[in-house]
């Protein structure tokens, strides 16, 4: 069970600034919730390092290699046609098929990586129970901090968030 301090900010700029300051001030930002992508926010809450592109590259190359292997097997080994002495392994003409399906393969691998990284699809999550959370997909900007266990520390964290411009603060257990 983790305890989370959730604070709403009036805009993306205020949220980003507070998220950046949280660590130096001694708090641990867990996540942030915004209605659009805010540049630099993920890094500020400690989410970084994506393997999405690596997965896309590996998936794309693997599918392309399989496609070329299919062409090679069918045109050179299984069903060779000697047409005017042209090379059986006509690689320039064979390039389009691996290229097109390779790109599609990269797209699918990336989607799988995206889902694995972000935990989607997951229709239910405890945070949905927070009142007003439905506004996150429209116009609300929330910052989630790891809630200090000590009562005095907790109060200090609340004060710090209010000073930073928080409009509302919730304490939730997930």
């Amino acid at each position: 069970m983790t305890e989370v301090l959730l604070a709403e900010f009036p805009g993306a700029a205020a949220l980003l600034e507070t998220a950046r300051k949280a660590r130096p001030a001694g708090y641990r930002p867990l996540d942030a919730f915004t209605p659009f992508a805010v540049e630099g926010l993920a890094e500020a809450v400690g989410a970084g390092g994506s393997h999405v592109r690596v997965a896309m590259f590996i998936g794309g190359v693997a599918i392309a290699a399989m496609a070329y292997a299919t062409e090679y097997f069918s045109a050179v080994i299984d069903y060779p046609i000697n047409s005017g002495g042209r090379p059986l392994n006509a690689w320039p003409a064979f390039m389009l098929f691996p290229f097109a399906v390779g790109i599609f393969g990269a797209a699918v691998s990336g989607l799988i990586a995206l889902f694995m990284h972000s935990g989607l699809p997951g229709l239910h999550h405890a945070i949905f129970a927070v009142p007003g959370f439905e506004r996150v997909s429209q116009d609300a900007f929330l910052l989630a901090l790891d809630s200090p266990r000590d009562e005095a520390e907790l109060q200090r964290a609340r004060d710090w968030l209010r000073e930073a411009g928080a409009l509302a603060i919730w304490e939730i257990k997930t």
Partner: protein
Amino acid sequence: MSLQAEPPEIERWTEPPGRSYLAISELVAAPLLERRQWRWRAWWIAFGIASGLTLIMAICMSWLFATGVGIFGNNTTIVWGLPIADYVWWIGIGNAGTLISSMLLLMRQRWRASINRFAEAMTLFAATIAGLFPIMHLGRPEYFYWLLPYPNTMVVWPQWRSALIWDFWAISSYILFSILFWYVGLIPDLATLRDRAKTAFPRYFYGALALGWRGSARHWYFYEHYHLTMACLAVPLVVSLHSVVGMDFAASLMPGWQESIFPPYFVVGAMYSGFAMVVLLTALVRWGFNLQPLITAEHFNVMAKIMLAASIIMGLSYLTEWFAAWYHGERAERWLVGFEFTGGYAPVYWCMLLFNCIVPQLFWFVRIRCSIVAVVVIAILINVGMWLERIEIVWNTLSHDFLPSMWRIFIPTFWDWALLFSSLGFFGFLYLLLARIFPMVSMHETRRLIYEESHQ
């Protein structure tokens, strides 16, 4: 040239009623969830017409499959007719949505935020309809799956050196890729609809499709990585797709087709007709869903500039073709250019040059570019011109090849025209349905546009 300072970006791309995060959601979601703020009467009339045309398309296809390709105007000389021209035209339009969306994203053209979604949707349907035409054109459409490499009792494999096989793979990869690109970009907006829904069915429907999107910084981080990489991959895929369509022609030995300029010329043509179609859809979506605050006259202005640039490149391509025919010295090539200007299809050719090269020059004038009606009318003419170009490419070369005794003229039949116009109706049918179910403007990207433009 005006020396006045340009207005701030936010004033160019939005109007005051659309300048808050909540207002954007309200504008885009209200027609879908609360059935407000849309021209339902116009929608139903358009839907009725489109459904009728879709029915006609079903009849055309049934008649075609029952009796064979003899119902088209094709003859022993002109073996490719309207279905191939329709295919090239539709795939051109189908190319543009993803191309526009991904290229503008990579070029950091933020104004794309309010047009990219329906441009992508246009791609899905146009490319799907395009994919039907080659199958309809096959004498034995029931065997189209022979293009797939699968172990079979005949122990034969596809001929990988054939441009038609490349075509099949390029189109199918492209359609599947475009569906992913469109859907992933839609997920955050589906979450908005889920959260705004007041009744159970839309909440479950959009909730399931939104996959549990929470707008977390992590979600956005991985989403951005994926979406941007997809855009980088989309550009070469799109370019390869229409290049391959060009190679369907250029890989032959026919006069007027065997030209190295064909692949890039087809890609620019696709972008050109696609932008023209996007302009038309932009005007309709803007009017039908009252999106004037999010889609301004400036959007039409910049799209007109892109069409102007494309029209100049098209003109240059035509010039290059004529020059190459003369410089080549081959008699059939020179005959062909003469035939284009004076032969049986000359009025069509002149119209094409007028619509594709001359009329768009009006876009040099800022007053024309800023008039939505003028931009839309010219965009329609460009689309007609681009269709004429496709049919000219097919007709001229096949009607006038190396052997004069084989020269013939193509006369389209009722079924040729019926299939072309009913395919437009089918496109409208799919598009109108989509517009009632999914948001036509990307809400999260428009919010970001507002945020970034107001914090600069």
